[in-house]
């Protein structure tokens, strides 16, 4: 699978990707594409290979076979690193730096022009101003998650990869984060177990199971696979387990 046409690059592209950890297969001939500007949820049961997929997309793991591209570039390239933002599950910022230092350091590392302005914007937007001098090691899990999220978007990435982004956040903060992410332009891939989060943050779904591609479509199409009364979670569970 190559980019869909000369004029329209995919935001994210995986082609026949396999990856094993020793003798344990994690991904098996996985292929999917997300068009530029697309907002997709990556769904799958535990051990489906969601986190491995994201780690391949940021270039910290290499595929055994197949290839991965971000806006047409390999993930380990400078071009790709300049446009990708990544939030892992249970993300931890630098615990030897304060909240502000974390933001400024990563902004500088990413070549953001107005480091101070961008830092101030995110501190206010995510309600972290009162903790700006705090030692990250002493933050609550919720505030750590807010900081981690800020760090993943400090450079206004064109491709954003999020693994359970709303973990640990209280409901008002969740709403705040959702509205912040909605305002961000670009391609988003959100790995989550929670359908309501997928529904709030994305409009389409890539479903994988046991490291293999299972299904792709919009959330509305997914909903139509069940009866009108059936919760969408039941539909997803049925598809993931292969039950009729």
């Amino acid at each position, binding site marked *: 699978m190559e980019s869909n046409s000369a004029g329209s690059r995919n935001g994210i592209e995986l082609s026949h990707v396999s990856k094993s950890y020793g003798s344990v297969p994690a991904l098996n001939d996985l292929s999917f594409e997300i068009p530029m500007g697309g907002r997709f949820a990556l769904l799958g049961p535990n051990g489906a290979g969601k986190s491995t997929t994201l780690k391949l997309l940021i270039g910290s*793991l290499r595929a055994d076979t197949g290839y991965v591209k971000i806006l047409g570039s390999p993930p380990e390239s400078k071009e790709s690193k300049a446009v990708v933002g990544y939030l892992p599950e249970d*993300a*931890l910022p630098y615990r030897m730096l304060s909240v502000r*230092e974390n933001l400024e350091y990563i902004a*500088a590392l990413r*070549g953001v022009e107005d480091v*101070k302005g961008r830092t101030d914007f995110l501190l206010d937007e995510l309600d972290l101003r009162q903790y700006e001098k705090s*030692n990250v090691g*002493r933050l609550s899990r919720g505030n750590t998650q807010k900081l981690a999220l800020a760090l993943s978007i400090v450079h206004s990435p064109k491709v954003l990869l999020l693994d359970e982004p709303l973990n640990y956040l209280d409901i008002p903060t969740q709403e705040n984060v959702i509205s912040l992410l909605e305002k961000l332009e670009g391609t988003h891939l959100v790995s989550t177990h929670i359908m309501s989060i997928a529904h709030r943050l994305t409009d389409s779904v890539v479903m994988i199971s046991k490291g293999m591609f299972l299904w792709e479509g919009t959330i509305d199409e997914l909903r139509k696979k069940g009866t009108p009364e059936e919760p969408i979670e039941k539909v997803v569970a049925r598809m993931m387990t292969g039950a009729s």
Partner: protein
Amino acid sequence: MVVYFTAVSQLIPPQQASIILGYYGTGIIALFLAMALATGGIMVFKSDRDYLFTLPLSTRDLSIAIFFSQFIAFGISILFIFGYLYPSVGSPLLLVDLVALALTFTSLGVIAPSLNTGVRIALSVALALWTLLGLANFPYSPGAPFNGNIYGGTATLIALAAVTVTLAFRGLSRIELDMMRNLVRTTSTDYKSQNSYAGKSPIGAIYSMNLSNMSLAGRMNMAGASRYVSRRIKTRWVALASTVAAGAFFAFGLYEGPVNLTNGVVDGNAASVLVAVLLSFVAFFFSQSAITNERLWLSLTSLPAPSYFKHLITSKVVSLLVVLVPFAIADVLLQSLGDPDLVGSIMMILLVIPGAFVLEICWAAYIAPIQVKGEDMTMPAQFSIRQMATALPMGGVIIAATLSTVLPLFAAVAGLVMCALAALLTLNGRFWNGVVTKLTENGFV
């Protein structure tokens, strides 16, 4: 340690070995006492807090039980670390010294959290200096038994243990669950001075971060539980402390004069051995924080791994030199004042330790260390054998550094080989790309 002892006893004649071990013993006890007080705490797992301390049992009884388990674990470690110092003590009273030391280390860990940071650091420095007074033949110092004052030194250690154990038990009898939580989280909430990275280039930011602050990390192995402790210290304070310590070393060198370890093999300043050992430890603690505190999801999504690690390691070496250079200057001054054979020590400081430092970082990265995520305890079973091997090179480094101080040719060859290897690995992009994959596969985030 057995390898170190064997190397010292085989390569260096017994009389000199006894002197070198005396210096080593005093230095390492000073270091342990200072660290026990500076970074202490009772080793309580998160699971202990969540399950054990919520059982209908007396918190005091549980705390005392943990104290004793920690004492036994300390005692075993101390037998391994200090037991071979017997030749420098030459008396079975060493056993009493070791028990007293184990009780003191354990008790200091309990006392430490109730003291504020300033007092803790001041007391740590005072304890270390008091111990080092043993080198100057002061008979009532914790370091005295290893420098020919066995009775006064043993009496001092017993008195120190009696005082610290009493204070620790008074603390334990008042201990509450909230305090237990505090014991495992001793860092302050806010950083008083902030660094700004605004206006810095990506590479400039890496150097700025690593040159303005230094981070120390080490695995404290207590009560069968491992805890990664990491601390950030302003580089200018480290430079000041290092300069003061190097000044003390210089003054001691003037006072003591060249220790004439005659018989044709060694003729150098034996205090350099102490410096070699202490700098080996310092370099090791610095090296461990380089990777364990790293955040791949942030740094390596910003810059390619070879480029990031090249600059990270170079900046760490420069910051380590802040610690090392004052000692090299002290050596040069002593040499110029007529102290012979400090060439080996100078090469040890400027070549062997920096080279070994980079190799320790590369080794730790290669075998995939545990990432510092919090300061809670880590069960030993959570470490793989490979990961526990991060500390292995330190034994070799201590041996190499010790031998370098007394054998200049060895210092030159070992230093140049280590630096060449360190440079090759630092600049090897394939190595660092492989390291990233390995770290990620081992759960590094």
